[in-house]
């Protein structure tokens, strides 16, 4: 059983709105301005914001999908894609059962989790060297 199980846990979800989607979009707009002005990245943890059932999906569909889509296999999959607004990334970390562990909106030119880490590069270099020996 995972998050894909079709459980209808919502009661009367049709009409409920927190009104948090629009303010979030404005927050993202301000963050983009800060990135352009000062190169200051921003990260928004979607778990800490109250959302009515369906509102997160609404936010995600408003942001849309842009040019880049990456999938990590690191302690379970992670989905990372640029939205149709360049510089705005949606990062979703899953565990091995594809249950969401955390979800962030990042405003940056590239989420740091995509970069190869020096420790991993060193480890890989050693493995390659050992293989060629």
């Amino acid at each position, binding site marked *: 059983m995972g*998050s894909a199980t079709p459980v209808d846990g919502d009661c009367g979800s049709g*009409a409920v*709105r*927190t009104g948090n989607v629009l303010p979030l979009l404005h927050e993202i707009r301000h963050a983009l301005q800060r990135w352009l002005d000062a190169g200051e990245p921003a990260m928004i*943890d979607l778990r800490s914001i109250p959302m009515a059932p369906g509102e997160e999906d609404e936010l995600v569909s408003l942001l849309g999908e842009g040019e880049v889509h990456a999938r990590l296999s690191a302690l*379970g999959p992670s989905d990372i894609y640029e939205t149709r607004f360049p510089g705005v990334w949606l990062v979703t970390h899953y565990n091995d059962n594809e*249950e969401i562990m955390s979800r962030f909106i990042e405003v940056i030119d590239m989420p740091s989790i995509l970069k190869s880490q020096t420790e991993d590069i060193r480890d890989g270099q050693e493995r390659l060297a050992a293989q060629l020996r």
Partner: protein
Amino acid sequence: MAKHKSLLETLQHQGISRRSFLKFCASTASLMALPPAMIPAVASALEQARRPSVIWLSFQECTGCTESLTRSHSPTVEGLIFDAISLDYHHTLQAASGHAAEAARTAAMEENYGNYLVVVDGSIPTANPGYSTIAGISNRDMLLETATGAAAIISVGSCAAFGGIPHAKPNPTGAVAVSDLITDKPIINVSGCPPIPVVISGVLTHFLTFGTIPALDALGRPKAFFGQSIHDRCYRRPFYDKGLFAESFDDEGAKKGWCLYKLGCKGPTTFNACATAKWNSGTSFPIQSGHPCLGCSEPDFWDGGGFYKPLSTPTEDIAATLVYGAAAGAAAGVALGTLNHARKTRAQQAHAPVTVDDLEKGDGQ
């Protein structure tokens, strides 16, 4: 041995990449309700973290708290954390039994004196020690003995934190909370019946990460998870603000997902993370499935005057209600809202009139 390795070394040993570690840190920061800007701090702290020894004591409880914690599918953040701690004694989960089990507890205490963590679920009977014993040792004696060398105690669940259901009137076993017996150790109350699994592991992770206890509220609960009321973070809050309430479980308001205040929701006086962390892998929480909050993370929630009575209905213990109101007001300004609301909902009093009998019950205490 493994115990002396840092968490980073433990993860490296398992072939986990730096990138995976950073992903783990991002999810951990989110789990601990830390702002994303803290992720690098979490990473550098976790690199150094040593596996703490944990002794878990289960007293008068239903095992629901352990069930809650173990209901997450591995490997999860929680799973990794449990790889990262050394759970040396937990009589429900450990393989050893009898003398071997008790020997494990004594050994863990001796080896890590002054540094181990004690996790307690369940309340402690004081009327007669025979109500609950482990290996012939009364709960009270085991708690006092184990607590002496503890760095801190985590009271998991409302029973350990506040006495919980065993403490409910008429409290036949004389059940008390951990904090009623231990006064010389830092105690973290992780209340809830049961507590949210990520809140339990979030508190353990905080200790693991920073080696300190998190900021606590007046009831000893970590502010990161208990700093805001269910009401303030409830997605149905806009309906409360507009005065739109479900009046019964099957009326138009209930179908439209309106506020459950009039059906007895204790959200305004209940401090917990259900509304954002949610349950069952983030599927839902009681209010989302159409049921009022019972207030299970608050002291004496069982004796709060009825799960389906609105908060504005006087309970039999008026003094306690005033204390709740004051605490809520200090923390989040809820009391004022409740007062304003009381005016708006005067009509609802007609649904649950206070009778002479109700008032007399209060005097009888």
